[in-house]
């Protein structure tokens, strides 16, 4: 049994995240502990009121219990890790959290919060890759909140490699360095200053094109929305190139032989058919 924290983006619009994660975990023989009461992780509200963030983050940690908690969004991952750090290091904060959670009848707990990169990296080692993504030049887009920040650290923040390790494991030609590999996709700016968001997003696609990547793989629903769902907008407004974008769960699922529809691949708006044709799908 594993708990999966879905987060708002996956729960309300990027359905391919939940569809692909469910199919992949089932394929790996893992049963999901269903939690109906998950709420927002609080991440967007940190600057508006830190207590709003802390209550939301800690109530989800409480619901997760003590085991592994796979967190399928980078923003949520950072939010939960930072809340754990703050609660663990400041006694008055911990007391406030206990008091506030009691109002909802919840008790704080400390699950092991896992990003999809570290989770799948450690789990697919011994699995049979029935449909290797042979010949594909794939680049990793980690997304900022999986690697940077003082509360996270499953990989190097300045030269990570675990996502590329996964891509190699599933038979792709992982391009370990390309221009602006670790740069921001611009998604956060969409709420504040969309022009800047579009500039940053299209720059990521331009660099992927410059490195002659066949596709980009990301674990984050926010980055996925920016680079895949909004790709047509980036092409129209910024003359960005068209580049296939896959979720990490979709790439791994394809390699393990899961059907494209069960990975929600029909929801990708970037030209993923181009990739699928290359691997005989």
């Amino acid at each position, binding site marked *: 049994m594993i708990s999966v924290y879905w987060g708002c983006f996956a729960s309300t619009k990027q359905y391919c995240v939940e569809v692909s994660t469910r199919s992949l975990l089932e394929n790996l023989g893992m049963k999901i502990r269903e939690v109906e009461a998950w709420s927002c992780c609080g991440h967007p509200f940190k*600057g508006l009121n830190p207590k709003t963030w802390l209550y939301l983050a800690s109530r989800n940690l409480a619901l997760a219990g003590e085991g592994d908690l796979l967190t399928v969004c980078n923003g949520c991952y950072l939010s939960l890790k930072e809340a754990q*750090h703050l609660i663990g290091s400041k006694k008055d904060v911990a007391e406030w959290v206990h008091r506030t959670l009691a109002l909802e009848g919840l008790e704080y707990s400390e699950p092991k919060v896992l990003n999809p990169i570290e989770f799948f990296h450690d789990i697919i080692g011994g699995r049979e890759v029935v449909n290797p993504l042979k010949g594909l030049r794939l680049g990793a887009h980690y997304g*900022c909140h999986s690697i940077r920040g003082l509360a996270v650290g499953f990989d190097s923040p300045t030269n990570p490699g675990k996502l590329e390790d996964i891509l190699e494991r599933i038979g792709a030609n992982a391009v370990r360095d390309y221009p602006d590999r670790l740069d921001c996709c611009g998604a956060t700016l969409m709420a504040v200053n969309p022009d800047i968001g579009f500039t940053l997003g299209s720059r990521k696609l331009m660099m992927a094109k410059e490195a002659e990547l066949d596709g980009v793989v990301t674990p984050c629903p926010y980055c996925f929305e920016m680079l895949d769902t909004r790709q047509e907008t980036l092409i129209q407004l910024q003359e960005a190139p068209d580049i296939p974008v896959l979720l990490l769960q979709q790439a791994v699922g394809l390699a393990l032989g899961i059907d494209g529809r069960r990975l929600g691949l029909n929801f990708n708006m970037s030209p993923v058919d181009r990739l699928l044709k290359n691997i005989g799908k």
Partner: protein
Amino acid sequence: MATGFERPEKCFQCGRCTSSCTISKVLKDYRPSRIVSSVRLGLTERTLNDTLWNCARCLKCVEYCPQKVAPADLILSLQFLAVSKGLTFPEAYEEMLRNLSETGLAFKQLSVVDREFETYTRESLNLPPLMAEARRRKIAEVLLKIGKGEL
């Protein structure tokens, strides 16, 4: 204090945060090192304006700072200070706050159209339902207390 990581007093103005900043590359006037320096010099008021909301939260400044000042975390604290003083914040956040009190999530549940122009919902994809009404109301109650400063 937001995340508790910020340490503006440790800044020695090397400027690495600004040189690594995603936004400084596209917005010439946006300089995290200047924001940190204002706070360090006791001129915090000077930083409280709309500029603060341009932070992409990419955390490069946090990563590259040799003094562990955590400028991005300081900027979150300043956003909160600005909001507390009644200054405006981006409208998109107002909508997220509304969604949060109504649904417990920052976004509204949508129907989504796929590449073949078929429309899907959580129900049609056989995804489990989101939280029940009673739970939503309980969360909204706690959030309201936090908003009023009672917690």
